[in-house]
Structure formats: C-alpha cells, structure tokens
C-alpha cells in the first residue's frame, strides 16, 4: 500500500527549502561583501598607482599602452567616466582631446577621401597639428583607437574598420558598412594598389559578379570609391583613402 504524502512531509520540505534559501542569501551577502572589499582595495591600489604614475602615463606612450592593456584585461575602462576617480588622473581629458583632434582631421580631409582615412595617415596629420614637444608627438595608434572608440557615442557616424595586417580605416560619415563592404576594403588594402575590380572579387573571395558589382556600386554611391572606366580590361574602383599620393597630399595643414 502506497503511503500518501502527509502534510508533515510537505511542511518539512518547505522548511528545508527556506533554510537553504536563508543560507544561500547569507553566503551570497558574505561573498558580495568580500568582493566589494576586494574591489575597494583594488580601486584604491589602482587609483594610487594611476596618480603616482600620472605623468608617466600621459607622457610615455609605451607606458600608457601597458597601463591600458592592464586595465582592459581586468575589464576596467579608464575612459568610461570623467566623474569617477579617473578624473583626478586626467586620462579622460587626454583621450577626449585626442577624439576632438581626430574629428578635426577627419573633417579636414573629408573633401578628398570621402570620409575614410587610414589610421596611419590620421596619425601623421594629427601629430603634425599638435604641439612640437615630444609629449605631443608621442601618440600611438593604440591611443587613437582608444580615443576613436569614444566617438561611437555619436552613433554610426564614426567607426573603425579593421582591414587586416594591423591596419585600420576610420570612417567619419554616417552609414553603416556591411561585412561585404569591409571585405572589399580589406581586399583593396591587401593588394596595396588602392583599386579593385569585379573580377578580383570573383577570384579572391569567390563572389558572384552581382554580389561584387553590388558592393562596388555601393562604395561609389557612398563616395568612398571613384570609378575608372579607362582601364583596358574592366572598370576599376579606386579608393582615394588608400591612394598614397592622396594620403601625402598637402593642401590643408591638418
């Protein structure tokens, strides 16, 4: 004969569950407290480290990079807030200043590159427009990437496109680039010729003619590429942002 579950058993179960719950909460609270203690200690340490090495961080690009890498590996963004203790470090200001200069260079070169600029060119122009002292000159591509990332808050008007071999393009015109478009840019960069064609995309990426044509038409339509109908084989699509003479052209001082 099967025993039916009695009220007592149910109550007992309930009680146990509650006890578990209580214990769980207290453990959790305990851990949380410990964690926040750790965090506080860590914050203090990081803070004192940062303020102690404030000048080094601002002056020495290499040091700054290591510091950034360290922050990144533990998930701290030293630029996330100007209000927090980081404001004492002035790191935020350093990058905000860089961000503004990045925008300036992008705007100033927009007339010729259609809103795409190679990070290296951006750096050369930006460094030239800054002061002559070493501290102003010593800006690494990592600094620029960190600063440019801040600009994402303006929506899709500003983005960074990796094009392989450690190279990046900074896009300063609204309009999301799809994966296909990024692949086109990667191909152009890898060829080092500043131009591309439907057949190259056919061969290198195994794209259908329509897909290639579609992507290239988009690049022309958005002003990133110029079409050249005088090549003997087929139409070529040229990117001023990757054309060496254009990059070196000195019209504006920035």
């Amino acid at each position, binding site marked *: 004969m099967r025993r039916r579950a009695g009220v007592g058993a149910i109550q007992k179960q309930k009680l146990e569950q509650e006890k578990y719950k209580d214990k769980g909460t207290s453990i959790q609270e305990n851990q949380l407290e410990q964690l926040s203690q750790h965090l506080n200690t860590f914050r203090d340490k990081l803070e004192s480290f940062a303020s102690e090495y404030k000048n080094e961080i601002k002056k020495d690009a290499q040091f700054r990079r290591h510091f950034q890498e360290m922050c990144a590996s533990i998930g701290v963004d030293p630029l996330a807030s100007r209000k927090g203790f980081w404001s004492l470090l002035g790191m935020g200001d350093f990058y905000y200043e860089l961000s503004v200069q990045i925008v300036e260079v992008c705007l100033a070169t927009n007339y*010729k590159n259609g809103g795409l600029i190679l990070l290296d060119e951006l750096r050369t122009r930006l460094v030239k427009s800054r002061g002559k002292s070493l501290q102003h000159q010593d800006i690494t591509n990592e600094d620029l990437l960190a600063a440019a990332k801040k600009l994402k808050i303006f929506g899709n008007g500003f983005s960074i496109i990796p094009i392989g071999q450690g190279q990046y393009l900074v896009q300063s015109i609204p309009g999301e680039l799809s994966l296909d478009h990024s692949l086109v840019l990667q191909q152009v960069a890898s060829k080092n010729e500043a131009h591309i064609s439907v057949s190259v995309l056919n061969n290198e990426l195994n794209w259908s003619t329509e897909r290639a044509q579609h992507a290239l038409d988009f690049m*022309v339509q958005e*002003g990133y590429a110029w*079409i*050249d109908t005088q090549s003997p084989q087929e139409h070529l699509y*040229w990117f*001023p942002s990757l054309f060496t*003479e*254009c990059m070196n052209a000195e019209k504006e001082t920035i």
Partner: protein
Amino acid sequence: MSDVQWPWQYNFPPFFTLQPNEETRKKQLEAWRDLVLEYHKKTKTCIIDIQEADNTALFFNPAISRKLSPEGINAVLEVLYKNGNAEPIDKTKIRWYIYWHTLAEWADIFYQHAQENGLINSVCTLYELVNTPDKEFTGLSEEIVIKILERLQKDEKAELILTEDTSGVKFF
C-alpha cells in the same frame, strides 16, 4: 610647363572619368577647375580648343594612359564659366577663353598697375603693356588684354585706341 604643380589627382586614374556620384563629381570638377587655372597661369595660355584639348598635357596624362573625355572637358568648362573663369569665344563653343583671373580681377590688376606706374592720363601701346617685365600679365594674349581694357573702358577708367597695326590705351 614643368612649373605646373600637378595635384595628386592628376595621377589618380579615375580623375579622368567623370564620376557618377554627385558629391564626388563636385569635388572632381573643383579639382579640375583649380588645375585648369593653374595650368594656364603657368603656361601663360588663355585658350582651350575642345577638339585638340584631349591631347594636351592638361587633359591627357600619358604616364597612366588616362584622358578626360570631351564630355568631361565640357563639364569642367561649364564650372569655369559659372565662376567667370572661362568664356566661349563664339557660339560653336569649341574654343574657349580661360581667365585664371576673372576679367574683373584682371581689370583691377591693370588699373592698379597704371596707377602705380604713372600711366594715368598718358597713352601706352598694348605691346608695351604686355611686355612690362615680371608682371602677372606679362605675355598675356592681346585678345584677352583688349577684353580687359574694354571692361575698364565701360567703367570710364580707360579708353582703348584700336588701329590696324598698333593699338593703345589711355588710363584715366
């Protein structure tokens, strides 16, 4: 000719293809306008003949085997015309005057020259005028000089004396 400062675009092959994108084309034509003016200023030439233009160094870059099409040249001339930097010589619109200074600017330059050199109220020949050494208008074609002086004449700042062999001008 070697003095011409070729811009980077001159070696950028698609510069010689009229661009379909409106924004890009605008930038392209502006760059062409600057180049055309720079070229004529440096070579001291004032006339484009559309039928021959695509064989001149200006519109044909043999190094990259690219030349601007007649449509392209016309589009450039249109921009120049709008800014007062070009004018068709006759109704056929095959030959065009190119003014690297607009006629109004040229008129000021000549008048200022007259003032600075005591030519007011005296007569000088056009030959003398364009052979003044080291001036921007040195060697300027006589047809253009007459057009400029006619402008000054309209403003009653000069009077042209046109004869068969020697033409002159009197500045007021």
